[in-house]
């Protein structure tokens, strides 16, 4: 009883916190589940509400009402604007939307800081609520109790609209089949705009009312977005009640969890998320992805395997054409045109040290490390059809492995690279089964959880990772077994370039081989691949492990080039950048991913160098520009230049 009593206040706090998250997450879930927009700027909508409400609240009821009206209206307007902005992206899938909304969030976040400053603002609530009441022998802030009541009312109203009204029916119908909704005389565009405006209004209202709980500040957007994503993953998209339960659970973890189990609290959230992933909530579509091989007994599997190998043999044994004939054929084929950008890139890569200053050279080295991460994301996103936000996890494993190896005296570059790749591969083999069972946006959520869980571990296991301080002062890597440690920027860059070229060349070879075709086939027509006897799950797992190893190499390079390692280097932002680099690059283009990563590092660190503090704004603008100007990514440019008429006008995907 005493224990219960001691934790009453945090428990009630958890309910308030959870209900706040529910209102925000309901908006996110509404936008995604019924309008099909994965809104990564949803946290920004909350921040708009929170800032507006805080500015207008002067401690009176009128101020709160005014703030509520203005904040809700502003966020609803932003939501409606987002609906208009996604019109040109209608046929481009969730990744293009992610690029757009992430860019919007970066730009919006920067603008909010411009307007309201970089400090957390103090929040005033109406005088009557700025007191405490007695709650079972404890004093408790009256505002929070009032907030609980308001959130419940808001949730009940939303549920009523969605399930009991004609408007709600139209919204649910548009989620199901917008064409047929139009054929019954309802304008699906209006429904889309209305849904996104309503989702924005929910976030804005939550921001105004919830400001005393999660106040307006520079980190608000990301914090709120992340927590509401967790809620949506835990609760699924189907049921508001499940979302409610998930919200309160997350709220309790963030309050009661911290007070009862301070050491474990950072894990609790992700443990819950991981549990859901393991037990497969209805959020995923398991019926489409279950392993449904023709039969699973080992003998017939072995027989099929042998048969498959036998079928492949004749092709491999076909008489190889003589070298000059092959060269001639290659020159006449499209092959040389594909190779030209590769060769140009290679030349530029090794010419850079001659033209750049040391700072830019070290940036270029970081860009290569991030580029390898982006290439590993391309392998998963573009080839295996698993869009991932979690490749920073194996990237981090590789990075921390290298730093620790160096600390232990293993400073030979090749050893560091190979062991880092191995460690990352083992890590990916462990996380793989959870990732490869889902498809599409669900993968984004699952990998996000993997990445965040890894970040939590990094912050906790200080003996290995240095915690939030990161690692510095470990011995420099030696390029080979002998020689001095590399400390000079040019040396480091050349080392990074050589490793990157080898890794990318290997990746390209594998992707152009039949193995790459199997992956492409899996992405394009998974059911057919299964039906023709391919163990799709195993292919994806192998791809996941290889991509993990590649990311591990990238992590190792980053540590070598930077000569320090901080948790921010392997955080969510980097994961998002890697995915966006891939989208900018053209999703299936390895070279495009490298260029995309280069473009991001260039924008964030080099261009922003002349306009300090505005890196996010510039990046956001880059993302927004890329989504509209490069519908098929940087890789699309080459196709457009090479074959202007056909490729552009038919609008088909780049080969």
């Amino acid at each position: 009883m005493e224990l219960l009593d001691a934790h009453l206040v945090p428990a009630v706090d958890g309910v308030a916190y959870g209900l706040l998250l529910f209102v925000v997450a309901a908006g996110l879930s509404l936008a995604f589940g019924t309008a099909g927009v994965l809104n990564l700027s949803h946290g920004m909508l909350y921040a708009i509400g929170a800032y507006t409400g805080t500015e207008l609240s002067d401690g009176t009821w009128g101020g709160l009402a005014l703030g509520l009206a203005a904040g809700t209206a502003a966020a609803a307007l932003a939501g409606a604007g987002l609906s208009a902005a996604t019109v040109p992206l209608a046929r481009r899938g969730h990744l293009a939307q992610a690029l757009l909304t992430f860019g919007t969030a970066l730009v919006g976040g920067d603008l909010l800081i411009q307007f309201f400053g970089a400090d957390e603002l103090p929040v005033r609530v109406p005088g009557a609520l700025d007191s405490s009441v007695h709650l079972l022998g404890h004093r408790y802030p009256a505002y929070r109790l009032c907030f609980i009541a308001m959130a419940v009312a808001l949730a009940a109203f939303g549920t009523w609209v969605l399930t009991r009204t004609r408007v709600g029916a139209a919204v649910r119908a548009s989620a199901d089949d917008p064409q047929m909704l139009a054929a019954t005389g309802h304008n699906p565009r209006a429904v889309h705009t209305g849904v996104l405006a309503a989702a924005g209004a929910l976030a804005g209202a939550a921001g105004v009312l919830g400001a005393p709980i999660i106040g307006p500040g520079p980190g608000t957007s990301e914090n709120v977005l992340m927590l509401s994503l967790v809620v949506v993953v835990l609760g699924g998209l189907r049921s508001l009640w499940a979302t409610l339960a998930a919200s309160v659970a997350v709220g309790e973890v963030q309050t009661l969890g911290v007070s009862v189990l301070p050491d474990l609290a950072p894990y609790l959230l992700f443990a819950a998320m991981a549990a859901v992933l393991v037990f497969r909530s209805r959020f995923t579509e398991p019926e489409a992805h279950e392993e449904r091989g023709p039969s699973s007994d080992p003998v017939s599997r072995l027989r099929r395997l042998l048969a498959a190998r036998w079928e492949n043999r004749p092709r491999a044994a076909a008489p190889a054409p003589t070298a000059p004939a092959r060269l001639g054929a290659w020159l006449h084929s499209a092959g040389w045109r594909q190779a030209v950008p590769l060769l140009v890139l290679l030349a530029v890569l090794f010419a850079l040290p001659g033209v750049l200053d040391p700072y830019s050279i070290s940036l270029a080295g970081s860009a290569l490390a991030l580029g390898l991460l982006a290439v590993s994301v391309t392998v998963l996103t573009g080839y295996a059809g698993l869009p991932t936000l979690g490749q920073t996890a194996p990237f981090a494993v590789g990075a921390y492995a290298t730093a620790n190896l160096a600390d232990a005296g293993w400073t030979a570059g090749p050893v560091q690279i190979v062991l880092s790749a191995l460690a990352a591969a083992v890590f990916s083999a462990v996380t793989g089964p959870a990732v490869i069972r889902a498809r599409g946006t669900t993968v984004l959520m699952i990998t996000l959880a993997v990445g965040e869980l890894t970040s939590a571990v990094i912050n906790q296991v200080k003996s290995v990772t240095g915690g939030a301080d990161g690692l510095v002062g470990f011995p420099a890597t030696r390029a080979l077994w002998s020689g001095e440690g590399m400390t000079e920027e040019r040396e480091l860059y050349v080392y990074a370039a050589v490793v990157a070229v080898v890794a990318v060349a290997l990746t390209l070879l594998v992707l152009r081989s039949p193995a790459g075709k199997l992956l492409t086939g899996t992405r394009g027509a998974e059911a057919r691949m299964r039906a023709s006897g391919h163990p799709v799950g195993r292919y994806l797992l192998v791809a996941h492990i290889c991509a993990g190893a590649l990311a591990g190499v990238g992590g190792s390079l980053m540590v070598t080039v930077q000569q320090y390692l901080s948790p921010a280097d392997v955080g969510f932002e980097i994961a998002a950048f890697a995915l966006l680099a891939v989208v900018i690059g053209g999703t299936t283009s390895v070279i495009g991913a490298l260029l995309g990563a280069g473009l991001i590092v260039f924008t964030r660190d080099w261009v922003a160098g002349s306009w300090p503090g505005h890196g996010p704004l510039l990046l956001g603008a880059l993302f927004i520009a890329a989504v509209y100007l490069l519908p098929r990514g940087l890789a699309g440019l080459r196709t457009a230049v090479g074959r202007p008429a056909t490729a552009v006008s038919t609008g088909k995907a780049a080969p």
Partner: protein
Amino acid sequence: MLELTGLTAGYHGGTVLHGLDLSVPAGTVHAVVGHNGAGKTTLVHTVAGLMRPDAGTVRLDGRDVTGQPAHRIARAGIGLVPQGRRVFANLSVAEHLRLSYRPPRGGDASRPSVWTPARVLELLPRLGERRGNRGADLSGGEQQMLALARALLGSPSVLLLDEPTEGLAPALVRQVHELVTTLAEEGIAVLLVSPSPATAARCADTLTVLTSGRVGLRLDGAGAREDPTALHAALELAPTGA
């Protein structure tokens, strides 16, 4: 009255309908038959506004509705019963009825009659028994009834039926045909699309054989019922694909 003149439509890189002329006077059934790929569904989608035509006009009671968005065309009085029914999986039957019911504004004399949910349930009593069930939980026949109800509740003057008997048991097929005849008697112009000449001929006033997006043969329903040889010949000769 639905009038199509010179209707041309297609997808990226290929024209499917080549200048089709077709009219359905009020109170009649015009059946369009053809092989897979002849352009039947393209025709329906173009008329319903789910696709934009490349050329030609769609006129509804003399009003040009060519190229308008689907919801405008639906409001103008064209009801669609699509292939595969496409009922809303997560909406109950009652919600379907409520969502689809659009009382016509003002005294629109061109509308043959106003369909209210009560009147639709009178015509399709089975739906009344299943009011609380979700679209996904209905049987194929019930879904077909629901799709029809959804189209009727807009009180259309033209009804597009895309393979309404697909996958239904013979008894239900007969029921659908009776319904089509009933609706035509109400003054609705019915455009019925079907791959099977036998089903189409049973209730059609006019028959068009669509051959690679062009009118292959046109004959009146009574003639086709008496002597189906011409119809069969046109279909057997019609090459599939284009």
